[in-house]
């Protein structure tokens, strides 16, 4: 059934795009309205919920202590996991993460990691032995397209919201003190995704558009307008000049969003 709807919609979406229009009335380069709420999960060290159109993503941050990686003894650890929970879409199934959710988690991870968003050097308790581990858990609550941008946005917003208990080290023992300090952050990357439909590029695809798109291209842009992560997806291709167009548009779009967000 989905295939029939898709092929009918494909024609309609492609025809609209040709005229510079979209199903939901947006222009090709219009981002959907979005809303961010921070700190709604009290038991988590940090949390944020992003509404992007009807797409809804909740990110919770948990912080634990553990060993650093042997090649980075003076840095804390960050790990991203994504769950496409079955309540979010009829197409999501319970079970271990599939390639879709692993890819999503790894794209979010790369945006944060490569932009050096978290000041991981400040997460060391005892060099080479004990560091803080920041768990970023992406929970997709409703799927209406562009999970990548919504998840990346929610992850950074949740990190900004993260508070760590104060502590002191006495004779190698870690003791929690009263009060909190915010998680040390250096950058706030923003990820922008474009979908290619026919020979048109559209920003922030909704689910209908994702189902008919040829391919997508996501770029994470840091505070200075540099690109820090890219992922192409889908079974279509991009012309080299389209890639450069996307990188320019993504930079502009990120700047615009940064202004709106006050980041």
């Amino acid at each position, binding site marked *: 059934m989905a*295939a029939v709807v898709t092929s009918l919609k494909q024609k309609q979406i492609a025809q609209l795009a040709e005229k510079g229009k979209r199903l939901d009335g947006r222009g090709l380069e219009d981002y959907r309205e979005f809303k961010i709420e921070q700190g709604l999960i009290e038991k988590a060290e940090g949390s944020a919920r992003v509404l992007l159109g009807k797409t809804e993503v909740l990110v919770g941050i948990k912080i634990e202590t553990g060993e650093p990686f042997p*090649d980075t003894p003076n840095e804390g650890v960050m790990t991203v996991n994504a769950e496409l929970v079955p309540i979010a879409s009829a197409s999501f199934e319970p079970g271990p*993460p599939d*390639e879709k959710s*692993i*890819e999503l*988690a*790894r794209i979010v991870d*790369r945006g944060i*990691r*490569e*932009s050096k968003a978290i000041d991981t050097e400040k997460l060391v308790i005892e060099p080479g032995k004990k560091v803080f581990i920041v768990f970023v858990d992406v929970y997709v609550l409703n799927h209406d397209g562009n999970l990548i941008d919504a998840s990346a946005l929610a992850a950074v917003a949740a990190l900004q919201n993260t508070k760590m208990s104060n502590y002191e080290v006495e004779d190698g023992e870690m003791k929690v003190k009263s009060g909190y300090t915010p998680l040390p952050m250096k950058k706030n990357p923003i990820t922008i995704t474009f979908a290619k439909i026919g020979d048109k590029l559209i920003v922030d695809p909704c689910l209908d558009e994702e189902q008919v798109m040829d*391919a997508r*291209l996501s*770029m994470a842009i*840091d505070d*200075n*307008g*540099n*690109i*820090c*992560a*890219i*992922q*192409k*997806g*889908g*079974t*279509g*291709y*991009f*012309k*080299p000049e389209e*890639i*450069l167009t996307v*990188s*320019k548009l993504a*930079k502009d779009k990120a700047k615009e969003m940064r202004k709106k967000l006050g980041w």
Partner: protein
Amino acid sequence: MNQKPEKLIDKKGIRLDGRKADELRPLKLEVGILSNADGSAYIEHGKNKILAAVFGPKEVHPKHMALQDRMVLKCRYHMAPFSVQERKSPAPSRREIELSKVIRESLEPAIFMEYYPRTMADIFIEVLQADGGTRCASITAAALAMADSGIPMRDLVVACAAGKADDTIVLDLMDEEDKLGSADVPIAMMPNLNAVTLLQMDGILNHEEFETAVNLAIEGCKKIYTIQKEALKAKYVNAKGEEAEE
């Protein structure tokens, strides 16, 4: 653990392995080296040693996965436990699962999927030794294996990375540059159609550097494409055509 080199590029612009900024590593490609696969290829790219095999078109398993209008393509990128410095667990890592997906998506645009409805093809990639840029070398080999299997394709797919080592944009990063460099931009393309089918990046690049890296990687792809086509010809141009004679 080796000592970290202070600089990846010396004053004369020569890289750790003696290459210039826009120079590829030595490349060797062979087609049709596995007798049980429908198509196969082997690549040595720098110290990368990778085998790719294609099985198909064949019956879809499980059956309900079958598509009425096209073939189902599956891909598994897998690293041997001994392929890297520290033993890698043979269980598929999250990285391998992601790479399997992006490699599959880089090859699919080249294949006439609609010619084989209700069938599937498996692409198996085994990295025997890794030396930076395994996803690119895997794609180059897998495209050859696909062509060797006889499944019709619009073009071969060829891949190469560019990146930033110290302050220079360089072609075809090897292990140290991949790990210590400041950016990596792997690209796969169908050179005849000028179509990019894989693009990823990590690290930090400004717009101009990114453009330079993309163009350099595309140049690299085109150079490898020549070698790739020769490898395919080497098997088929001089083949006696035993099957045809029978």
